């Protein structure tokens, strides 16, 4: 019945997390978010002039996210260059952050968020979103809230929180199902994806677990921002 996790964690236990704000002096806002062995850094520049001009939105500012993995962040080197997975995750990240970011005061301008994985052990897009959310707040972008992101998984029939790479490759029974979810502290879902096999009831269970553990992540993000005291 109960799955024994390779690293001894309980089913609803997330990996040790740490976060730091203000790591890139040149950026308007920046942050690092680490979950287990996955490390993401994010830097925000903006609001600033939006190039190319033809993409400007005259009604309000544009949020532009760019997610990338450093070539040596994974076991087998990633050749630098355009990468479809990274392009998709960049857009997913934008959608995860857009509902809370308020850019009405910056028509025609852009807020650029650059996210890089310096070390990867699953849950990379979630770590990236968590770092980006802190970096946006740090940069002084008006926001309704911070968002917190976590990958909930299902290993065979058990719902678990925060899959690591080893668990992503789980093959027994129904195998592994990967469900990255991003939420506001009020439980509003800004991003959800799924990859695997799951029924409706268990999916609801997974979402409930995400609600619970995202609160832990939120506390760490909040503390990282408050610790900087004055910020920049």
């Amino acid at each position, binding site marked *: 019945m109960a799955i024994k996790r390779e690293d001894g964690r309980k089913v609803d236990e997330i990996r040790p997390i740490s976060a730091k704000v203000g790591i890139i002096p040149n950026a308007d*806002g920046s942050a690092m978010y680490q979950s287990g062995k996955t490390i993401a850094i994010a830097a925000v520049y903006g609001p600033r002039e939006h190039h190319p001009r033809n993409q400007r939105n005259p009604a309000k500012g544009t949020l532009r996210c760019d997610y990338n993995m450093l070539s040596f962040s994974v076991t087998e080197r990633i050749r630098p260059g355009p990468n479809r997975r990274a392009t998709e995750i960049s857009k997913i990240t934008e959608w995860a952050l857009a509902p809370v970011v308020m850019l009405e*005061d*910056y028509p025609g301008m852009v807020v650029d968020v650059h996210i890089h994985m310096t070390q990867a052990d699953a849950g990379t897009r979630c770590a990236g979103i968590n770092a980006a959310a802190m970096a946006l707040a*740090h940069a002084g972008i008006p926001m*309704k809230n911070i968002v917190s992101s976590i990958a909930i998984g299902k290993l065979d029939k058990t719902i678990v929180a925060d899959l690591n790479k080893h668990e992503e490759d789980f093959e027994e029974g129904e195998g592994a199902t990967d469900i990255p979810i991003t939420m506001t502290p009020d439980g509003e879902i800004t991003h959800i994806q799924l990859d695997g096999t799951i029924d409706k009831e268990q999916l609801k269970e997974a979402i409930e677990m995400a609600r619970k553990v995202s609160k832990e992540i939120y506390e760490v993000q*909040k503390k990282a921002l*408050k610790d900087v005291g004055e910020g920049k």
Partner: protein
Amino acid sequence: MTEENQRKVVIPGEVLAKGDEFLLGEGTQKKGNGEIISIRYGLLEESNNLIKVIPLSGAYQPRRGNVVIGKVEEITFNGWVIDIGSAERAFLSLTEVPRYVNKDGLDEVMDVGDMVTSKIWSINKRGIDLSIKSRGLGKIDEGILFNVNPNKVPRVIGKEGSMINLIKTNTGCNITVGQNGLIWIKGDLIEDELLAKNSILFVTEKSFISGLTEEVEKWFKENKIRGDKK
């Protein structure tokens, strides 16, 4: 009035208060359930039921009367387009220059790339209108220019200019602090200019502490050695 050293750091989404008796100041918003939240990363300030969040970071918000420092981007037939770091275009009309400017001679007064100190005299749908008619405004000829976080400018200037005057007295420099975060320093010696710049950077780094004026006076005692200090 909440004291400088009692101000709490708040983050976007954080609930500050609940109820109808509160007035919403900058950086705050009311949710459907009556909760008042912060929409910025900043310092919470409450006084007489007015709740506001003073941002710790973020873009410069232009206001009428602000003195700003910017770079000439473009010369049009009747003036100069100036980049002051805001979303709206800032424009200096040749009618807002304290002398006659020939329509063919705009670039001789100020050329693309020149830095200029100006005052915002109007903000409207078209953009920001600048003027250099007052004293101390105009093209910048020499000195040092650098950037600070625009949100720290009030601390650099101080209550009624107390901080910036302290710095001017201790360094003998002319200093113009742009509300948009650009600062121009001009002194007799480069050492004086650097001393002024470093003291301003000190203020921005320690802007959250109370008794900052005393700290800056102490800083000057330690750093104000004419000639080689390192």
